[in-house]
């Protein structure tokens, strides 16, 4: 078991103040969890910096001690609480929850809607969030509405076409539904296929059957494992008795 006071001394030398008690990981006692309270300097930079924390991690590793730093950012927690109150106050009937996380200095805001939101409401929520965040000198990295929206992307369509080609739109629709996607209508899928054809991603053969263009096959690439598209395609062909 590593010596905690030694760890604290090493960290103090690097101006890193430990908050709370150091605990060993239950499964791996040589690994320590260390809470560090983060503050912001006048330029809104994190203190201690990630670089300094990394240096500390290396210094401790040389002593044979593995540490996991858990950063507590009091200011971020305040901003997050305020943001939640603001958004829920204005959009309580549309939004179930809001929270904020930070990675690499910019903030990500996550919004969980109560139901599918129309564009006007989404926009209004985004505006509100931007206005609020900008008041704290914090950069908004991204705003995500986690709708769990589930329509197949162009990429997902291409992957399905690759496996079944040549395939017509009704077979493709069935395949996409089998893969767990929601396809709004046959018309929606036809328009999507048309768009992909105009971009040169797929080619239409006789009988309204589609195959990938050479460019698409090259860009999609392949994988050398059990999920290899070459193998899944062979299996799909075999299932169809070809």
């Amino acid at each position, binding site marked *: 078991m590593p010596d905690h006071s030694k760890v604290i001394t090493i960290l103090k030398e690097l101006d890193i103040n430990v908050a709370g*008690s150091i605990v060993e990981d239950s499964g791996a006692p040589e690994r320590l969890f260390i809470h560090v309270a983060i503050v912001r300097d006048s330029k809104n930079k994190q203190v201690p910096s990630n670089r300094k924390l990394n240096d500390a991690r290396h210094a401790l590793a040389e002593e044979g001690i593995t540490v996991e730093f*858990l950063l507590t950012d009091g200011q971020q927690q305040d901003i997050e609480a305020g943001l939640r109150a603001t958004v829920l106050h204005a959009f309580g009937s549309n939004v179930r929850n809001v*929270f904020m996380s930070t990675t690499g200095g910019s903030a990500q805001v996550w919004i969980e809607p109560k139901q599918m939101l129309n564009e006007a409401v989404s926009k209004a929520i985004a505006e509100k969030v931007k206005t609020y965040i900008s008041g704290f000198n914090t950069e908004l990295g*991204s705003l*995500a509405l986690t709708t769990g929206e589930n329509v197949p*992307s162009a990429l997902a369509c291409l992957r399905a076409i690759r496996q079944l080609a040549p395939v017509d739109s009704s077979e493709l629709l069935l395949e996409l539904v089998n893969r767990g*996607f929601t396809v709004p209508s046959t018309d929606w899928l036809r328009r999507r296929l048309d768009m992909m054809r105009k971009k040169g991603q797929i080619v239409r053969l006789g009988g309204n059957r589609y195959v990938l263009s050479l460019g698409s096959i090259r860009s999609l690439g392949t994988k050398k494992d059990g999920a290899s598209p070459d193998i899944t395609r062979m299996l799909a062909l075999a299932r169809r008795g070809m």
Partner: protein
Amino acid sequence: MEIVAQHLQHEAVVRTLSVERDLFGRSAFNRYYYATFLEVKASLAKLRPQWAGELAHASVPEVLRGKVKKELSRGRNTAQKMNDIAVVALCQKALSATESLAKIMDEGRATRVAADYHPEIPIVFVAVSDFRLNTVGVQTAQTWPHKARILLVAISSAWKQVHA
């Protein structure tokens, strides 16, 4: 599991004996962590069925930062080559969700270890109905399960577009 945690949290607040407040308080942290762990495990098992068996507590952040991130960035690169901007954005969000989720799991696990194995670290009441364990507030612990759910939706929907 989450309702059990809420109940324990409530009990910790209404009890009068400090020994009992401590016991219920630390168990609340434990249950909030487990509720979160189970959410994460169930969702990750849907992405890759073989993960269901191998996901021990310690390995969750590791799997997230390793295999999950790797697959998502590979998907993002393919989407980039196909000029599918929507999927690129989806993967980008999922990647940042993965890091946030790994952080929550680290914090949760460290707190759970303190709750279960370190009785010498006490529950500290900072307000009538607010208490902390080793600097982590119960109101933070309370948010772990639903934060995890939101982040998992972001991860799953990107995953589906590049893997289904």
